[in-house]
C-alpha cells in the first residue's frame, strides 16, 4: 500500500472510532471538552506512530509465537514516555485524563494496527498508517467533544493548561450537565454512529 493511501485510510475510510469501532472507553470518557479530546488524540497518535515504526523495523526479528507480548512492551514504553511528559508539561490535562493516559496501552487501536499493519509493512508506510489512524482518532474525539462540551457546560474550547477559559456560548445554569456524564457520552456516540451508517447507506443506495 502506498504511504499516502495508508495515511488517508485511517482518517475516514477506516476511521478507528466511526468505522472500526475500536477504542471506545477513552473516547467516551475523555470527550468532555475539545482540549481533552485533542490532548488524548495526540497522545495516542504519538504512541501509534512510535510503536508502528519500532514494530515495523523489528518485524523480521520478532518470533510470531510471542509477538503479542513483544508488541505490548513496545507500546507500553511509548505510553510511559507520553505519561511522564504530559505530567511534567501539561499537569492539568494529565489530571483530567487521569487513568486513561496509562490505559492507552490497552487501547485496541494501537495493538490492532501493530498486528494488522506494522508487522506486515515497511517503516515508512507504518509511520503514515500510525499518523492517519491517530489523526482519525483525534478527529473523532474532537467531533464528539464539539457536541458534548457546549451542551454540557455552555462553554467551548476551554483549555486549563493554556489559561484559556473558553468561549462562553450561554450561561452555565442552562447547560445540561448530564451530557458531561457517561450517559451523554454513550448516547452522543450512539447517535453519531447511527448518522454515519445513514450516510454510508445513502451513498450505497445511490451507487447501487
Amino acid at each position, binding site marked *: 500500500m502506498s504511504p499516502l493511501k495508508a495515511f488517508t485510510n485511517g482518517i475516514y475510510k477506516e476511521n478507528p472510532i466511526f468505522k472500526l469501532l475500536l477504542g*471506545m472507553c477513552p473516547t467516551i470518557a475523555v470527550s468532555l471538552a475539545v482540549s481533552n479530546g485533542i490532548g488524548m488524540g495526540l497522545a495516542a497518535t504519538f504512541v501509534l506512530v512510535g510503536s508502528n515504526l519500532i514494530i515495523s523495523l523489528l518485524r523480521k526479528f520478532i518470533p510470531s509465537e510471542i509477538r503479542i507480548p513483544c508488541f*505490548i512492551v513496545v507500546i507500553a514504553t511509548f505510553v510511559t514516555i507520553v505519561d511522564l511528559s504530559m505530567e511534567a508539561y501539561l499537569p492539568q490535562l494529565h489530571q483530567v485524563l487521569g487513568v486513561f493516559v496509562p490505559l492507552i496501552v490497552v487501547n485496541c487501536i494501537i495493538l490492532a494496527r501493530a498486528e494488522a499493519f506494522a508487522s506486515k509493512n515497511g517503516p515508512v508506510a507504518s509511520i503514515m498508517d500510525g499518523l492517519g489512524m491517530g489523526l482519525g482518532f483525534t478527529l473523532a474525539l474532537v467531533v464528539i467533544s464539539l457536541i458534548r462540551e457546549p451542551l454540557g457546560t455552555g462553554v467551548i474550547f476551554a483549555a486549563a493548561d493554556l489559561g484559556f477559559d473558553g468561549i462562553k456560548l450561554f450561561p452555565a445554569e442552562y447547560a445540561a450537565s448530564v451530557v458531561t*456524564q*457517561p450517559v451523554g457520552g454513550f448516547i452522543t456516540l450512539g*447517535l453519531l454512529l*447511527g448518522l454515519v451508517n445513514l450516510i454510508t447507506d445513502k451513498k450505497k443506495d445511490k451507487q447501487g
Partner: protein
Amino acid sequence: MRQLLVILFSQAFVNNFMLSRILGTCPFIGVSQQVETATGMSLAVVFVMTVASAITWLVQNFILNPLNMAYLQTVAFILVIAALVQLIEMVIKKSSPSLYRALGIYLPLITTNCAVLGVAIINYQANYNLLESAVSGAAGGLGWALAIILFAAIRERQRLAPIPRAMEGFPIALVTTGLLAMAFLGFSGFDVARFMGL
C-alpha cells in the same frame, strides 16, 4: 471490615467500572449478545481482576518501590497481567476442563480489557493495602458483571424490536448503555461511609 464493605459497595455500584468509570467497553458490547456468554465472560473478568489486583500490589510494593522503578509501572503491570492471564488459562485447562470449556475463549480477550489494568492503577492511586486491593478488584469485576448481564438481557429482548436500519447493532447498543448508565447515575454522590455509620 467496614472499610472493606465501603470499598465493595463503592467499586461495584457508585463507581461502577462500566457505567460510571467507562472501563471495559469493547468486551461489554462485543460479548453481550446472550446472557449465557455474558455470564461466562463476567466470571472470567471477576476472577482475573481479583487476582491481578493482588499480584500487581505485590509487584508494586516488593519490586518496583524497593528498586525505585515506579516509572516502569505501566510496562510492569501490563506484562504481569498478560502473563497472569496466560497462566490462569493453562492452570484452568489442566485442573478443570469443564470450567475451561466455559471460560476458555474469553480468557485471552481479557488482556486487552482495560478494566483489569484500570483497577490495578486505581488501587495504586487509592493507596489500598493488599486485602483492600483484592476486594476492590473483586468488587470492580462484580460491578462490571452486573452491568453486562443486565445489558445482555436487554439486548436479547431488543432483537425482536423494530429498530431503524441505521441504528442497528452498535449505535442502538451504545444508546441502551447510555440509558443503563443513567439508571446507575442514581448512585452518584452516594456517601457509602456515612450510610454504613462510619
